[in-house]
Structures are given as structure tokens and as C-alpha cells.
């Protein structure tokens, strides 16, 4: 009987152990049932579709509409700035309203209208599109690659002066300009992303001694300083500066700003040297000189609306 008790207790102990072992098995069982994607896509490299002047690899998702207002004030200092214009607040250099819509997660189209940044053409409409070619992935493809391009056309009245840069009497094709960019971006870590963009611009009508086709390299970055605030910056470098551009003392566009995200809105408070907002305006024609105080405040506001819910 003594032996029986011993075996009984021993057995009970063993079975308790085996239940504990089973709980270990249970944990293993659960873990084996979870399949994680080792090459999961890297998201949120940038918070919105644009930095200051440079577009990003971010797109409006399928079925979503991004309504944006971009605004550039007048020169802070220099001869048209200072206290008399309240440091540029009295002047509007350029303003643009735009709608971007995501047809697919990888394809967006956009339409915009800007005042024109004081470079000849004003009343500028634009159509643009962005396509995601490659997605950056963890332990996978190291870069995000997108294609961005579009056209602008002006609805302004043609200047009757034959030599004018805004004389469109010969052909209305002169109202059109085109731009294209290949975007290479990398989210380096949770806080920091960079983008480099070889850029081409074609203007149908240019001044004597200017180039119709121009090449540039753009670079931009975003550095998060808190969960919802980041510092953003971008820079364009024009490669084939024309003799006309040398004569007008062409300046490279620079932008620096603070990005604040509040749920459905993204807000940029920024400084830029260039007065225009569209690529075919600010890149070839910018003469605003940083050292002469010709830098301006501006803001971008983006608001996302969900048009169609996708499951």
C-alpha cells in the first residue's frame, strides 16, 4: 500500500509536470502558427507627398484624395521685404491649390492650379502623376523608386509683343512645359529618410540663349524630432545652366521647413528661396538670392479625404 501511495503521488507529480510541459508546447505551438513577413514593406518614409519643393516617394493611397494648399509669401528682407511689407506677409509670391487622387496604391494622379511665381508665366494649371516602381523592404530591396512627371500650361492672355516670353500667338504649344523625375528614396532609420531625384524639364518657349531642356539633381531629407514633428529640407541643383540663366544670375532653389502631423492634416511651416511652386517655374527661373534676404516664409497644408473605402 505504501508503494501504491508513492507511485500515486509520483504519477501525480509527473502528470503535473507534463501539464507544465504542455504549456511550454502550447507556447511553441502558438509561435509556430504565426507567420511573419521577413521582407515587410518599409512604410512612412515621408509623411506626405511633398517636402518643400521636391516631391517624395509617398503617394495618396487608393481611393484617397489629398487636398493641398501651398503658399509662398514675399521676400522677408531685401528691397521688397522688411517692415514695410511686414516681412513679406503683404505679398503673395505664389499660391497653389491641388487635388491628388490614388487610383491604385501605386498610382496617383493630380491636378493643380497656381498663380505662377513671377517668372513670366502666370495662371498655371498642372497635371501630374506618380507611379511607385519599387518598394523599400526590410531585409529586401533597399530603396524606394518612383516616377513622377507632368505638365503645366498657362491660360494667361498672350502678350502681343513678338519677343515676349509670354507671346503665344505663333502656337499655343508655347503655353506648355513638362517635367519628369526619377525618385530614389531610402528610410535609413525610424527618424531619418533621404531622397535623390534626377530631374528633367522641357519648356517649349524660352528666352534667347536659354535651354529648352534642362537637367537637375534634387536632394531632400526628413528628420523626425518627435513622433509628429520633423525637420524637412530640399535642394535643387541645375546642371546645364544656360548663358541666359548666367546673365540673370540664376539661383539654386533651397527649402527648409518644419513638418507637423495632426492625424488627417500635415502642415509645413517653411522657408524657401524660390518664389514659385511648380518645378518648371522655380527650377529654371529662380533669381531670389538667399544672401540678399530674398528668402520667404511659406506653408503647405495637406488634408486627406477618403473617397472610397477599400477593404
Amino acid at each position, binding site marked *: 500500500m505504501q508503494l*501504491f501511495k508513492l*507511485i*500515486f503521488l509520483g*504519477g*501525480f507529480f*509527473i*502528470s503535473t509536470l*507534463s*501539464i*507544465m510541459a*504542455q*504549456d511550454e*508546447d*502550447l*507556447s511553441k*505551438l*502558438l*509561435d509556430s*502558427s*504565426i507567420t*511573419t513577413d521577413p521582407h*515587410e514593406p518599409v*512604410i*512612412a518614409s515621408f509623411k506626405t507627398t511633398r517636402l518643400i519643393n521636391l516631391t517624395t516617394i509617398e503617394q495618396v*493611397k*487608393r481611393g*484617397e484624395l489629398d487636398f493641398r494648399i501651398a503658399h509662398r509669401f514675399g521676400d522677408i528682407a531685401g528691397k521688397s521685404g522688411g517692415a514695410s511689407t511686414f516681412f513679406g506677409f503683404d505679398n503673395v509670391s505664389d499660391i497653389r491649390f491641388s487635388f491628388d487622387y490614388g487610383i491604385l*496604391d501605386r498610382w496617383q494622379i493630380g491636378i493643380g492650379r497656381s498663380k505662377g511665381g513671377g517668372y513670366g508665366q502666370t495662371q498655371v494649371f498642372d497635371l501630374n502623376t506618380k507611379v511607385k516602381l519599387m518598394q523599400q523592404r526590410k531585409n529586401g530591396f533597399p530603396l524606394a523608386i518612383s516616377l513622377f512627371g507632368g505638365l503645366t500650361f498657362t491660360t494667361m492672355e498672350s502678350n502681343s509683343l513678338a519677343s515676349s516670353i509670354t507671346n503665344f500667338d505663333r502656337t499655343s504649344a508655347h503655353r506648355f512645359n513638362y517635367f519628369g523625375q526619377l525618385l530614389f528614396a531610402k528610410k535609413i532609420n*525610424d527618424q531619418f529618410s533621404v531622397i535623390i531625384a534626377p530631374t528633367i524639364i522641357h519648356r517649349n518657349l524660352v528666352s534667347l540663349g536659354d535651354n529648352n531642356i534642362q537637367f537637375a539633381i534634387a536632394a531632400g531629407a526628413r528628420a523626425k524630432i518627435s*513622433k*509628429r514633428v520633423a525637420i524637412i529640407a530640399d535642394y535643387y541643383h541645375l546642371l546645364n545652366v544656360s548663358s541666359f540663366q548666367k546673365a540673370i544670375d540664376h539661383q539654386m532653389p533651397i527649402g527648409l521647413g518644419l513638418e507637423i*502631423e*495632426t*492625424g*488627417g492634416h500635415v502642415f509645413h511651416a517653411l522657408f524657401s528661396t524660390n518664389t514659385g511652386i511648380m518645378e518648371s517655374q522655380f527650377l529654371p527661373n529662380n533669381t531670389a538670392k538667399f544672401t540678399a534676404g530674398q528668402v520667404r516664409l511659406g506653408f503647405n497644408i495637406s488634408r*486627406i479625404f*477618403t473617397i472610397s*473605402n*477599400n*477593404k
Partner: protein
Amino acid sequence: MHKILSIYTFIFLGSNLTGQLWLSKAATITIFSETPLENINAKTQNGSIALNERSGKVLVKMQIKSLNFPKKLMQEHFNENYMESDKYPMAEFDGEIQNLPSFSEQKTHELRVKGTMTIHGIKREVEIPISLTINKNKLIGQSKFKIKCVDYKIDIPKLVVKNIAEEIEVTILAELNQIKK
């Protein structure tokens, strides 16, 4: 004596060899919150639940990124700003059924499960209700409970506090199958 011993051995050791582990790899987990401005709802069908019918242990794991939102921007914000799901990829629950029923009773049992909930890297002791329907070779588990964002240090900035409820309702529905060893 030998007879008793062999029966005893059969019951205690033999029964351990038959399956008492239950698993669901495709539990439906939804989160929902209602505010004046915006409803937040998201769903995954990739939740994992494991249950040991002898010890009453229940384990639940869900990949945060597997939650699918109708609004993709909301999904991005949820992962990037609120859940920080690169840092904390899983939500987990590790608990024990307090009123363990007999699994031979094929009916619906209302059970209390006590254990540790881990969300956003924060561990908390909680008790959640489960309604468990025992069928011959499957279990249907259902649960609905609320979690408070502040309990798991999920910050809601003051600017968007009206858009996001401070309490989120979690619903779990799972069919568990017996695992034969």
C-alpha cells in the same frame, strides 16, 4: 494491485498523450472606437490563439501590422505613431481560465480568464470574459473587452483627442481545432 496500477498509469500518462491542445491560426480580431468625428475600426483574420484544456492556459498573439483599416492613412498613423509597431510588433495575452469547465460537456461556457496583456510593450494584469462553445472536435471562442489607451502608454496628442477615443473595444472570434500529437 497490478490492475489498479495499470488503469492508473493509463489514465494519468495515457491521457496525456491524446491531444488536449487547441489552436486557431485564423482568429478574427477587430478593434473599434466611436468618436463624434471619426469611427476607428480595423480587422485582422490572422490572430493566433492556443488553449490547453487540462491546465486552462490560454495564449493569444496578434501582429499589430496585420490589422487592416479601411482608411490606409489611419493604418499608417496607427502603426507609426500610436502603436510603434516596428518596435512592438505583437499584442499578446497569456492567461489562465479561472473556472475551467469539463471539456466533455458540449455546450457554451462563460469563462473568466486572468492573465497578462502585453500591448505597446506594456504588461498589465487583466481579466477578460470568454464565451467558449465546446463541440466534438472544435471550440468556438468569443470575447469582447475594452482597453484604455492610457493603460498601455499609447499617447493621443491633445490636437486629435476628439478624433480618437480613449477606450478601444476589442472583439475576438475564433474557431480552435484540436492538435493531435
